């Protein structure tokens, strides 16, 4: 039988961590508490601005715990978030995922605003319309205006649901950088192996990874990258997420989509049970988030009109839950594995605010709808008032 669990203790710990994190942030960055700021929306006069507004979502994944990120002992792992991004952000200390804690299905839930139940390991589309479909259909945006950059493991279907009122042809374009690289290096050297790391959800499972002609066309036609240039640059990178951010920069320069969704995944190496690799993944993701923010500032198409949202898809199991094995997995469903954070910064976001009430993961889509001006009719989350 399952071992005794201390559910209340876990919840108390979660509340304690959230509380201490908030206190730290307020002291460190001179942040205000968000409750008093609800009455006036930063988007109240944003009708015209919405037409030009861009939103980038980064899932800080896959799966990071408080104690390795924003809890006092974890802050050394996220120097860029702490020193560069937090002071410019509205920070939400408690984002609860009440759905299935698998990376694909959780990302699908974030993208649809509904707790999806699709098989985490099957190549299936979400069952409910995605944020990309709402965005494109309501605002009559072209396919080039909504993109997803994601790891390869099953995320190729994340851009578009199979919902009959939306679905086919209305979703986001999906770029899978590892597939691009696989196509570019087809039949050649082993020098790129570190960029093609496989899923660690089950660390001994290596999904088939093949590139094809279509991938190469994307590379040259859309990203304006020659195969040689791509290969040369890829040699300087150290992980799949670094490859993703490299592709993101190219995409921002060449296509400048208004809605861009980046799914990071390096952290999920934790499933292999090596703590140092998990921490390395967090530190790399921290740096990459900063790099994306700097790119936003430096690209004319994005500077001054882009809102960046960063949030983990969920946490990982608590050390205190005897049913799990600490950081390694996210299988217990305990409070800490469900509770994470979200950071919003950029256009329309107040700087230096901490919001300590609990949100849910599914609240993201309605909030994006309010920011960009579309109606996510079937999303089940609630609007985040501080961002709407």
């Amino acid at each position: 039988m399952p071992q005794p669990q201390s559910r209340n203790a876990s919840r108390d710990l979660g509340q304690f961590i959230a509380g201490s994190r908030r206190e730290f942030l307020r002291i460190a960055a001179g942040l205000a508490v968000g409750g008093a700021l609800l009455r006036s929306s930063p988007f109240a006069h944003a009708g015209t601005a919405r037409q030009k507004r861009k939103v980038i979502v980064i899932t800080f994944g896959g799966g990071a715990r408080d104690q390795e990120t924003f809890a006092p002992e974890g802050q050394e792992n996220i120097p860029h978030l702490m020193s560069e991004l937090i002071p410019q952000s509205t920070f939400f200390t408690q984002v609860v995922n009440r759905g299935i804690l698998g990376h694909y299905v959780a990302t699908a839930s974030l993208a649809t605003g509904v707790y999806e139940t699709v098989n985490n390991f099957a190549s299936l589309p979400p069952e409910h319309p995605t944020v990309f479909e709402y965005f494109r259909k309501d605002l009559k945006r072209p396919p080039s205006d909504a993109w997803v950059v994601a790891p390869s493991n099953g995320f190729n279907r994340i851009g578009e649901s199979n919902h009959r009122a939306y679905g086919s042809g209305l979703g986001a374009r999906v770029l899978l950088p590892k597939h691009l690289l696989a196509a570019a290096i087809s039949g050649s050297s082993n020098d790129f192996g570190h960029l093609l790391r496989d899923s660690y959800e089950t660390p001994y499972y290596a999904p088939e990874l093949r590139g094809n002609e279509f991938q190469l066309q994307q590379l040259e036609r859309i990203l304006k990258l020659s195969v040689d240039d791509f290969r040369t640059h890829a040699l300087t990178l150290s992980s799949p997420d670094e490859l993703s951010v490299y592709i993101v920069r190219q995409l921002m320069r060449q296509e400048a989509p208004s809605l861009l969704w980046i799914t990071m995944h390096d952290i999920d190496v934790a499933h292999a049970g090596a703590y140092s690799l998990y921490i390395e993944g967090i530190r790399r993701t921290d740096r990459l988030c900063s790099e994306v923010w700097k790119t936003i500032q430096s690209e004319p198409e994005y500077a001054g009109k882009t809102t960046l949202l960063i949030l983990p898809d969920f946490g990982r199991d608590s050390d205190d839950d005897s049913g799990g094995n600490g950081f390694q997995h996210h299988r217990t469903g305990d409070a800490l594995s469900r509770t994470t954070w979200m950071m919003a910064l950029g256009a329309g976001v107040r700087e230096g605010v901490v919001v300590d009430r609990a949100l849910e993961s599914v609240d993201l889509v309605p909030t994006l709808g309010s920011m960009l001006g579309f109606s996510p009719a079937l999303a089940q989350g609630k609007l985040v008032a501080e961002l709407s």
Partner: protein
Amino acid sequence: MLPRDLKPELFSAYPPEARKLVTSSIGALQRLPLSFVPSLLREVVDYDFRFPAERKAMENELANLGSISAEQTQDWFQAFAQIHLSSQLEQIDWVNEPAQFVEQLSSHLWTTHQMDLFRKAATEYANRLQAAVPPEAPPVSRLGITVVGQGVTAHDGPLFRKLRPHGAYFKNLKPENGLKLLLDAVATRAKAHPVAYGHWYIDGGQPVDHNPALTCVSYDALEPVRSALLRKMRSEIEQPGMGPEALRTHLARMSPADLGVGKAGDAVLDRFQVKLLTEGSGTQIFSTAFAQWAAREVLRRAQPLTLLVRFAPRQRQKPMNELLSGDPDHPDLDLIGSLIDADMGAYYNWLNQQRLPGAEQASFLVWFEGHNQAVAIAPTLPRGTESTTAADIGQVLSWMA
């Protein structure tokens, strides 16, 4: 089928001792909800191959279920009974394949958003069981030892940060003969308190000479088994339709014989070692993950009186396909990464030891092998303190007694 339909003949495929145990408790099982019974059977079906502590726990649990009244049973299992199951689950042969049922149940609970309900029900049940059948105190206070940092010549980063608040941090230790002193101390305990599977030595690499009274598991000794397993995994991965879940199920069904183990060995230990590799995640490729998971499982299952865990360097991270097919004779090692893994692993070893009966009397020592840093946690030592005393490991052990 539902539990009320259970009959003794349904358990004919169970190993003999498991069959005897479960058929003597059929009346109690018939009164329980389906959301509960297969989880119990998953443990019982392996009864013949379980450690003494696990056998005792199963016997106590079944005896307790047989002793409580029908009204009490209803009260104890009300939360489990409220969990909605599908008809597909009822059709699974959960008597003979309880593990497969539990796997499907887990998927069902997540999909139907009932996982929290199940967790609450399981927690309440476990608490009640613990109150009704309190676990026995160990015959001698437990001692856990973890040795980290093998092969690291220098490390400037802080170590043992999670453990220091719980004990005394020694930073001027004399490291000479440290490992031998530890193994001698462990052997002395094994001789003084001879208990089957009571005293363990886990090594993440090649084990050093040790007293045969210790039950020893090591990453290097299991190399032929790991290689056989990785070959089978590579073969399975290439099968059409094979995905992570199917592969996991396939691995969980493997027996020692499937991997060439167990012709003349200890059947209980053989099965335990194979499960470390088929059920653990990362244990096949990273020695640090192996040592931590092995310690976790030894503590959870065997409830040892003494456990010495020595971490060894793991291979450097590579693409998973290369890790699966890499050259075992010439691994590229990550010494500092392994030290950081082991530092966290030591903390987990202590946490898992503290989950066992007698935690308040238990002691724990973690040492940076070949160096002068250690943390000792014991009822006799003050918490959150530092010592610059130039003591050797034998002296520190004596202060912990």
